[in-house]
C-alpha cells in the first residue's frame, strides 16, 4: 500500500502507541497537519508557542513514562523548541520531536524559514535525523522511538522536508531495530554487584543517594525493598523525588544545595554512598574535593559517561537500576540477618539527632504576610489524598515545593532539574493533564517563571486541561534576590519585577478562573475552591517577598556547611529598612 510521507508519519506514530501530540503548524508541515486533521486516532493539542509544545511533551513523558511527541515547523518553530529539547536532554526525558524542513531541493539555499535543524539540535538531543527520502521515513520513526526510550532516555529529533511529507512510498513498519553503534547495557556486572553487596554488609554509616534514573527504570519497588531490608537512609535528588515515598521513615528528603540538614549531613559523614540513577551534579556534590570524604562510593547508572565524570567511584556498576537492584537484593536477602535495625542504631540515632536539631522550618504569623512555605505545606495537606501530579517552575518556589510537598510515588513530579528552565512548569503540567484527564495536576509557580509561558493558558482553556496553578507571588525573581541578599550586598539588580500583571484578571481574560488569597486565613478556602473547579485555575498568593530558602549550601561550598537561616545583618534589614528602590519600598513591604 502506497502512502504519502504524512500518512506514513501518522501511521508510524500510531504503531508506537502515540495518542497525543503537541503541535504548532507552519508552511512546511501543512501536509502533515492536513493529514492529522482527517483522522481521529491521534489527538492534536495546538499550543501557542513551540517551547510550550516541547515542555508539554516532556510533562506527558514524565507522567506516563512513555515518549512524548511534539511537532513543529521549520526555522523559528525549530529554534523555539530548542529550550525544551535541551531541558529534556539534561533530565533524560524520552521525547520525539518532529520538525518540518524546507523541501530537499532548497536545503542550504537560505530558503524562507530555513534553519539547519539537525545542526541546531545536535548538542541537545540524544540523536537526530534528517529524512531525505520518504522510503526511509517509517524506519527512521521506529529508530527515533527506540533511541528515545531505551538506555538513558532522551530527546530525538526527526527533521522532515516538505517534499518528503508529500512523496509516496510503500508503507512497511519494521518490527525491530538494530543499530550497531547503540547497545545499552542493562545487566550489571555480577562480580561488581557482589562487591557492592559486601560493601553494604560491611558499612556502618551507609546512605542511598537516588535520582531520576530509578524512576525511568521503574525500580521504585526494588529500591524500597533494598532500603527496608538494610535500613539505609534514602537521600533523594531533585529529580529523584517520588521514587522513594517522601513520608517513609527512611526518607531523608532531598539532598544538595537546598536539601534537608539530615540528608546533607548523612551523606557527608557516611562511610558508604550507594548512588543509584543519579549523576553527582554540582548542586548535589558542592565542593567536589570534599564530597563525602569518608565514604566508599558505589555508583549504579545505565550511562557509562555518568560514572567517574565528576566523582571518583570505588564500585562502578553500569546497568539498568531495576535489573541491578533486583540482583543486589537477591544477594542481600540471603545475607542480611534481620538484625539490620539493631546494627544501624548508632547511625540512626545520629541521623535523628540531626533531624531534630535542624528540621525544615519557617515562621507563619497568623496576621503576618503569607509565607511561601506555608502555601506549599497547606497545598500538600489538602491534596495528598488525591495523589496529585505536581509540576514546578524554577527558583525558590521550586525548592520549597521539593522540601514540603512529599510525594509518595514516582511519575508525580515534573520539574526542570538539569537545565533549570523557567517556564517549564505550566506546559509540563498541561502535558501530564493531557495524559491523565481525570487526575489532579498542580503547578507550583513563581510570578517570574509563570510569565515565561503564560501564553499557554489559551491552550489550557481551549483544550480543556484543568491545571491548577498556584503562584507564590513575591514580586521578585526570588532566588536571584536571595543570592543578591547573601552575596551581592543586597543590590537588587533586575530581580524586582515591579509591575507584575494582575494574575486574577489575566486568568479571567483567558477564560480561566482566577483566585487570590490575601490573608493566611483565606488560604485553605481558596485552595479548596481552586481544586474543586473543573477548569484551569490561577491561584495568586502574594507572599512575603524577603523569605529565603534554607538550608542552603553556597555554590562550591561543602555539604556539611549549610547556611540555616538569614545571617544577622540580613535579619535586621528585613525587619525594618528593606530597600528596593525608594519609591517601591512601600509596595514591596506591604505584601
Amino acid at each position, binding site marked *: 500500500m502506497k502512502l504519502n510521507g504524512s500518512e506514513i508519519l501518522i501511521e508510524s506514530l500510531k504503531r508506537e502507541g502515540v495518542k497525543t501530540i503537541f503541535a504548532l503548524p507552519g508552511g512546511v508541515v501543512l501536509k502533515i497537519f492536513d493529514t492529522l486533521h482527517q483522522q481521529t486516532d491521534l489527538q492534536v493539542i495546538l499550543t501557542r508557542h513551540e517551547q510550550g509544545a516541547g515542555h508539554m511533551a516532556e510533562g506527558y513523558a514524565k507522567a506516563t513514562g512513555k515518549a512524548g511527541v511534539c511537532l513543529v515547523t521549520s526555522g523559528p518553530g525549530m529554534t523555539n523548541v530548542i529550550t525544551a529539547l535541551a531541558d529534556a536532554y539534561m533530565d533524560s526525558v524520552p521525547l520525539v520531536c518532529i520538525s518540518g524542513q524546507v523541501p530537499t531541493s532548497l536545503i542550504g539555499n537560505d530558503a524562507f524559514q530555513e534553519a539547519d535543524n539537525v545542526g541546531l539540535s*545536535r548538542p541537545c538531543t540524544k540523536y537526530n535525523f*534528517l529524512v531525505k527520502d520518504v522510503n526511509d521515513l517509517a524506519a527512521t520513526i521506529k529508530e527515533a522511538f527506540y*533511541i528515545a526510550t531505551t538506555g538513558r532516555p532522551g530527546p530525538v529529533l526527526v527533521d522532515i522536508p516538505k517534499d518528503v511529507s508529500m512523496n509516496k512510498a510503500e508503507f512497511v513498519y519494521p518490527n525491530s531495530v538494530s*543499530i550497531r*553503534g547503540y547497545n545499552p547495557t542493562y545487566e550489571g556486572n555480577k562480580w561488581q554487584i557482589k562487591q557492592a553487596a559486601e560493601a553494604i554488609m560491611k558499612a556502618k554509616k551507609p546512605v542511598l543517594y537516588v535520582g531520576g534514573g530509578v524512576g525511568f527504570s521503574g525500580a521504585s519497588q526494588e529500591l524500597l525493598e533494598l532500603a527496608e531490608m538494610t535500613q539505609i537512609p534514602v537521600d533523594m535528588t531533585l529529580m529523584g523525588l517520588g521514587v522513594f515515598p517522601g513520608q517513609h521513615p527512611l526518607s531523608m528528603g532531598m539532598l544538595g544545595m537546598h536539601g534537608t540538614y539530615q540528608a546533607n549531613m548523612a551523606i557527608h559523614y557516611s562511610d558508604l554512598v550507594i548512588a543509584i540513577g543519579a549523576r553527582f551534579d554540582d548542586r548535589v556534590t558542592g565542593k567536589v574535593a570534599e564530597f563525602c570524604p569518608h565514604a566508599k562510593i558505589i555508583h549504579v547508572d545505565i550511562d*557509562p559517561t555518568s560514572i567517574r565524570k565528576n566523582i571518583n567511584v570505588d564500585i562502578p556498576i553500569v546497568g539498568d537500576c531495576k535489573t541491578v537492584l533486583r540482583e543486589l537484593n537477591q544477594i542481600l536477602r540471603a545475607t542480611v540477618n534481620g538484625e539490620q535495625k539493631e546494627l544501624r542504631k548508632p547511625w540512626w540515632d545520629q541521623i535523628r539527632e540531626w533531624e531534630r536539631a535542624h528540621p525544615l522550618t519557617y515562621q507563619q504569623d497568623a496576621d503576618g504576610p503569607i509565607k511561601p512555605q506555608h502555601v506549599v505545606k497547606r497545598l500538600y495537606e489538602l491534596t495528598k489524598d488525591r495523589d496529585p501530579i505536581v509540576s514546578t517552575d524554577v527558583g525558590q518556589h521550586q525548592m520549597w515545593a521539593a522540601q514540603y510537598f512529599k510525594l509518595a510515588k514516582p511519575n508525580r513530579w515534573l520539574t526542570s532539574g538539569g537545565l533549570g528552565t523557567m517556564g517549564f512548569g505550566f506546559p509540563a503540567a498541561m502535558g501530564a493533564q493531557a495524559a491523565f484527564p481525570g487526575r489532579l495536576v498542580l503547578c507550583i509557580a513563581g510570578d517570574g517563571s509563570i510569565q515565561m509561558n503564560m501564553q499557554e493558558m489559551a491552550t489550557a482553556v481551549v483544550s480543556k486541561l484543568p491545571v491548577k496553578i498556584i503562584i507564590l507571588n513575591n514580586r521578585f525573581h526570588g532566588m536571584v534576590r536571595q543570592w543578591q541578599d547573601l552575596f551581592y550586598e543586597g543590590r537588587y539588580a533586575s530581580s524586582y519585577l515591579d509591575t507584575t500583571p494582575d494574575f486574577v484578571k489575566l486568568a479571567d481574560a483567558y477564560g480561566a478562573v482566577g483566585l487570590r488569597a490575601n490573608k493566611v486565613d483565606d488560604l485553605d478556602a481558596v485552595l479548596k475552591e481552586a481544586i474543586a473547579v473543573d477548569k484551569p485555575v490561577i491561584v495568586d498568593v502574594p507572599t512575603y517577598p524577603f523569605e529565603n530558602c534554607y538550608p542552603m549550601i553556597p555554590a562550591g561550598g561543602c555539604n556539611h556547611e549549610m547556611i540555616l537561616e538569614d545571617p544577622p545583618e540580613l535579619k535586621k534589614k528585613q525587619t525594618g529598612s528593606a530597600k528596593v528602590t525608594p519609591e517601591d519600598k512601600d509596595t514591596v513591604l506591604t505584601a
Partner: protein
Amino acid sequence: MEHIISVTVENKFGVLSRVAGLFSGRGFNIESLSVAPTLDPSMSQMTIVTSGDERIIEQIVKQLNKLIDVIKVVDLNETEFVSRETALIKVHTKPEDRAEALRIVDIFRGSIIDSTPGTYTIEVSGDSGKIEAIINLLQPLGIKELIRTGRVAIAREPVRPAAVQAKKVARE
C-alpha cells in the same frame, strides 16, 4: 598526556560534526584528526590525537562510545601501536640549494613529487619526530607551504610464539 584514539564510525553525513561537536562542547582537546572510509565502505575510521589526564581520556572514550554513530573506540595507548604521518612540503630552492634539498630528502627517504625552477615539493612520511626533523632541516632553505595529514595509527598485532601459531593453524 597524549593519547591516540582510533574510532570506527558509520560512514554517514554529519558524523564528523557529531564527533567534533562532542570535543568542542565538552572542552576536550583535538591535536589532529584524520578520517577515511574503511575496507567496508559503510564505515569510516577516525584517528584522533588528543591529550588529557586519565579521567579526561576515560571520559573522551566513554563519550565517544555514547555517540550512536560510533561503532568502536580503541585507546591505542593501552596497546602497542605504530603511527605515521605524511607531510607535503614546498620549499624554495635557489640553484645553489637544490643539491642540499635533495640530500635532505634522501636522508629522510622522502621523494620529490613536483619540481619547478624555484621550488621542490617534497613528500615525506614517518612518525611525528621524523616530520619535525625534516621540517627543521628544510626551514633554512625557506618553506613556502606545508601540509600535514595528521597522524594515523594502528595497533600492533600481538606476536605469538611459533608453537601456539602452529597449533592454531592445525585446529583451523
